[in-house]
């Protein structure tokens, strides 16, 4: 059973005051997130990530299509009690302390009263919130501390599926690292993590699979390693002697010389051709280094490319 499954899920808003015009926020989306995986939902700002999450969480009604979470409907309270959600830039009741806030959410999620204190304290420790801040009103918290409280409220009821909208937003490098560790920890406990982000290094480090969304349209889905491999990489070649530079540049390989040491970035497919030129001119080859293709390369390639989806 898929943890999250969407079938042609779409959303169109009506914008304008007098003559309303339709604005497509999400084109028909077919997506399947498996149970127990960490799934990254990537896209630039305005791509439709938050719209998708609002639809999945039942905060907005879809214009068409359908979706299921853990095989059930989002309106079913039994399903909702198994989901944890952290909205983007969350704002909480700032007159409450973390202990009071989590107690409120735990009560709403039907956590038995006798277990609440133990669970709340364990959760606050888990998200790295210092014990001396537990009794302080949230209005005195920094953005990073609020993000930790946000993560705590998303997991206090021990959900099966955790949906996070930009969970690293507003965190310093140390905080981002801690959130990454927490996501990994939750995943090891068997929870499914579905999170949106535009920080690609986080997605690359954490995700089993990712989906790339742009302008409301799904551009690609797959295992991170496969997606990265699908982008043609470049190779850096370094050699000694400038005699081959003219021929190299004639073939379109841009050369950068520092004294007698020359460096060129060559497409993977053209490496043999470039090395032949260097040999013909008697250049001394110093290094041939494949440049690692990152998720960013895939992401940037997909933003411009037409839609092509492989599950």
């Amino acid at each position, binding site marked *: 059973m898929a943890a999250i499954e969407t079938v042609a899920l779409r959303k169109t808003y009506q914008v304008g005051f007098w003559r309303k015009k339709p604005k497509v926020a999400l084109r028909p989306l077919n997506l399947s997130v498996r149970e127990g995986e960490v799934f990254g939902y990537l896209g630039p700002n305005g791509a439709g990530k938050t719209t998708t999450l609002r639809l999945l969480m039942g905060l907005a009604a879809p214009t068409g299509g359908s979706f299921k979470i853990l095989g059930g409907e989002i309106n079913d309270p039994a399903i909702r009690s198994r989901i944890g959600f952290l909205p983007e830039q969350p704002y909480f009741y700032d007159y409450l302390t973390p202990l009071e806030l989590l107690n409120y959410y735990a009560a*709403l999620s*039907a956590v038995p009263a006798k277990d609440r204190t133990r669970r709340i304290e364990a959760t606050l420790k888990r998200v790295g919130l210092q014990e001396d801040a537990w009794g302080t009103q949230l209005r005195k918290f920094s953005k990073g501390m609020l993000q930790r409280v946000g993560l705590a409220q998303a997991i206090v009821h021990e959900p099966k599926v955790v949906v996070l909208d930009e969970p690293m937003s507003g965190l310093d490098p140390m905080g981002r690292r801690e959130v990454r560790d927490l996501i990994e920890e939750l995943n090891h406990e068997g929870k499914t993590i579905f999170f949106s982000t535009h920080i690609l290094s986080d997605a690359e480090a954490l995700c089993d699979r990712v989906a790339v969304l742009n302008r409301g349209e799904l551009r690609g889905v797959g295992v991170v390693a496969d997606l990265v491999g699908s982008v043609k990489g470049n190779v850096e070649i370094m050699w000694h002697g400038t005699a081959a530079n003219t021929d190299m540049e004639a073939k379109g390989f841009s050369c950068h010389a520092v004294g007698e040491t020359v460096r060129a970035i060559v497409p993977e497919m053209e490496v043999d051709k470039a090395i032949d030129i260097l040999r013909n001119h008697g250049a001394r080859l110093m290094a041939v280094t494949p440049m690692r293709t990152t998720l960013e390369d895939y992401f940037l390639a997909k933003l411009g490319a037409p839609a092509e989806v492989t599950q």
Partner: protein
Amino acid sequence: MSNRLGAIAFNTFREAVRDRVLYNLIIFALLMIGSSLLLGQITIAVQKQLLINLGLTAISIFGVLIAIFIGIGLVSKEIDKRTLYTVLTRPVQRWEFIVGKFFGLVGTLVVNAGLMTVGFFVALLYLMHGLVRSDLSILAAVYFILLQFLIVTSIALLLSSFSTPIESAVLTFAIFVVGSFSEDLRSFAEAAKGAAHYITMAISYLIPNFSALNYIASVAHGEAIPGNIVLLNTAYAILYAGSAVCAASLIFQNRNMK
């Protein structure tokens, strides 16, 4: 269900208390102390009448203002600040949220009015050097004021479920003012002819009859309130507020979050 409703209601109450809403009690206390001292200077027969008028009117006005200004923000504030996102994604039905918020604010108003009533009786005791049995009817008038709060809160909640906070505040206040003169409106409707008769009659029945819930002048003159009036007014307020809260829940049920 009751746990979730209770949690939402208690949180609404706690928000009002921490936002220093109950600070209005200080103004009320000062008003009661000041009037007790001043009224001591005038004839004993009118002292009590004036104190009852002043005290109960103050309880009513403070409460109505709180009901309007907090009531209009009960839902819209949660949407604007997006605190609602983390509530509605839990096993909470949307109607439970609306009903919980309603009871939370009504609870705040009951506590507020309860403390004011205690202050009022202390002032009355100080002024009259004792209480008499007929003073119990003052409690019935306070009870009717609470019924007014029930209706005002439900209207503020209903209007704020589809309009802006400012529009909701102005409309709720206007409805309260018109409703306070609804007996006069009905008299006018009966005297009017043609379309004006039907329109004013419809408005007078649609707008809550707050004048039927205002017994301040009667109790100030020492009149007793009949038991059947208490029952009828209770049923009227519950039906009216219940319908408004149901309508607010229905509107909120289909609302998309920004």
